[in-house]
């Protein structure tokens, strides 16, 4: 059922207040009244009215303008109509500068109020429809919780569908926070393995020996603390998918063990002598470019080629800015359910702030930002102010100005260092940003002895 629009009438004069309320009720609105500014603000805090009629002249405590400004703080998008006597029209015009949407002079022509209210409601209805439409749109652009309308991502959705039912190993590359695990899950749940387990392991989180036993399991007494036999993630994932996150961080020994699993589809538990055969699809992910790790000699090239059968690169959020509003609204919708807080949308101003931000932490950072804003916001829409905290973490966007006595080479070195920091050591991306090819970048890194 369609929610009725509610109106709050604020006037210290009872007759005035009640006559306007009665007139609006006849028009089918749900109307509340308040006899003073403080009462109005308290009511506005408890409920989000669509329209506020506020009498300009109220004695004591708060006058109409102060009341309006307090309401405005709570509900940035509220329609506030100032009611004024003929003698104070000038003040009413000032009130409009302070954020009143309209003013009416009493006694007003009966058609005036109805026209005014209908016009505002028409706009509100449109906004409401837009929100619903946008939510539908979000669904349209979503694929297993991954939301995007960026062409590269849409291609990626198609690729996921194509490869879902294969057993080929997949290597996912993307900065942290881009949603590598979501992609892995999407592949798993789109294919015929969906009924079988999906098991994720973060390789960066564990020391070598622990990770080994985590992946392959161990026999009782294999090492101190191995009081019972334990199945590893590979066994538990039988028939399904194992997702190895941050694979670039594993030790040379584990790299060899993994290579064996990929070649033989079998392994031994730690301290065990029985060969265990598995049917598991391996999806690996890394935030560093593994190809470069191979060139540096920190990652086995044979393992890399085994893993890199299908390669997926997820672009960082700053390269698909058109997804920012889509994702932000998706998070608002989801979090409003989770937090039990009625928030419908973001203002244009809020979106501008989000679009201006660099998002080094990608989609995850955006999600966290929306959550933080939702926890503290007091209105039904998130405004620019709700995202004020982003300005503190905003990276310096001013151009880099070299000191006067710096040599050209020194300038070049510093630019390369800064770029590599920004790309978290990703050579491919850094080279692209600098507009040079990768081998040139390697040359410069060597030349300037840049630590990595």
């Amino acid at each position, binding site marked *: 059922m369609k929610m009725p629009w509610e109106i709050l009438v604020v006037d210290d004069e009872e007759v005035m207040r009640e006559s306007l309320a009665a007139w609006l*009720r*006849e028009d089918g609105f749900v109307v509340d009244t308040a006899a003073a500014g403080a009462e109005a603000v308290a009511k506005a805090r408890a409920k989000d009215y669509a329209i506020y009629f506020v009498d300009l002249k109220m004695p004591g405590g708060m006058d109409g303008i102060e009341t309006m400004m307090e309401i405005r703080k709570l509900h940035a998008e509220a329609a506030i109509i100032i009611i004024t006597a003929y003698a104070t029209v000038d003040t009413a015009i000032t009130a409009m500068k302070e954020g009143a949407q309209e003013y009416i002079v009493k006694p007003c022509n009966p058609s005036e109020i109805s026209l005014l209210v209908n016009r505002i409601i028409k706009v509100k209805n449109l906004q409401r429809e837009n929100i619903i439409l946008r939510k539908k749109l979000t669904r349209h652009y979503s694929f297993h919780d991954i939301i995007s309308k960026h062409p590269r991502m849409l291609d990626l959705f198609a690729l996921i569908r194509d490869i879902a039912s294969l057993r080929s190993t997949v290597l996912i590359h993307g900065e942290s926070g881009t949603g590598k695990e979501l992609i892995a899950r999407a592949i798993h749940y789109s294919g015929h393995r969906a009924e079988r387990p999906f098991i994720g392991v973060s390789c960066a989180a564990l020391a070598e020996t622990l990770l080994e036993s985590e992946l392959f399991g161990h026999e009782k007494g294999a090492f101190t603390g191995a009081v019972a036999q334990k199945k590893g993630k590979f066994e538990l994932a039988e028939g399904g998918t194992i997702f190895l996150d941050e694979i670039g961080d594993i030790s040379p020994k584990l790299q060899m063990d993994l290579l064996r699993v990929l070649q033989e589809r079998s392994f031994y538990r730690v301290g065990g002598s029985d060969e265990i055969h598995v049917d598991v699809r391996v999806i690996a992910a890394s935030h560093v470019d593994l190809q470069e790790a191979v060139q540096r000699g920190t990652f086995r090239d044979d393992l890399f080629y085994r893993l890199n059968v299908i390669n997926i690169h997820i672009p960082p959020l700053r390269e698909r800015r058109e997804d920012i509003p889509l994702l932000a609204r998706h998070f608002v919708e989801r979090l409003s359910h989770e937090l039990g807080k009625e928030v419908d949308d973001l203002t244009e101003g809020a979106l501008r702030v989000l679009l201006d931000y660099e998002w080094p932490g990608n989609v995850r950072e955006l999600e966290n930002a929306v959550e933080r804003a939702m926890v503290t916001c007091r209105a039904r829409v998130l405004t620019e102010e709700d995202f004020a905290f982003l300005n503190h973490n905003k990276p310096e966007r001013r151009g880099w100005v070299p000191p006067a006595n710096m040599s050209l080479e020194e300038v070049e070195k510093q630019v390369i260092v800064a770029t590599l920091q920004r790309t978290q050591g990703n050579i491919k991306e850094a080279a692209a940003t600098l507009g040079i090819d990768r081998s040139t970048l390697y040359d410069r890194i060597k030349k300037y002895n840049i630590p990595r």
Partner: protein
Amino acid sequence: MKTVAVVTVGAVAAEVLAEIELCLGRHFGLESQRLAPLGEPEFAWEPARQQYSVIAIMRELLRFCPPQAVRLLALTEKDLFIPMLSFVFGQAQLNGTLAIVSLARLRQEFYQLPANPPLLLARACKETVHEMGHTFGLTHCLERKCPMSLSTTIQQVDGKGENFCANCTIVLRESLQLLRSPDMLRTEEQP
């Protein structure tokens, strides 16, 4: 028997009163009961506006509703206002007992035009149906031909008809049924 009590506030032409009573029967199926006419509502006169406060009049009228009547309809020639608005054609308690209709601005004479008695009767009937509709819980209707559509100008009054649209008819029928159901229950109980 459910009736609508009809009362005049100040002098009101007899033919208008008679027409309104017929109109109530036509649209609500309710018998009307004419009350003794009330005098001039001087207490409600607002010299600054040269109009009568409909709120003051309604407050007084509440005392006159007879117990057997389900509604009280008042008719007046006085030009009425509520503080917010420059004038009203009538006023009613939404879902309440009281409705009042002013004939002042329904007359052609108000607009410096020659009198037109049939037009006045038609307008009076539409506004009566409108205000009575409010007492039965009807709010303003978007259907321009429906008497429940909001009219704030005389052109809008003339633009609408006196028969309820389909939507308003449904709501009205339910309200009227609620009024009558206690009687129906009593008849069923009889052997």
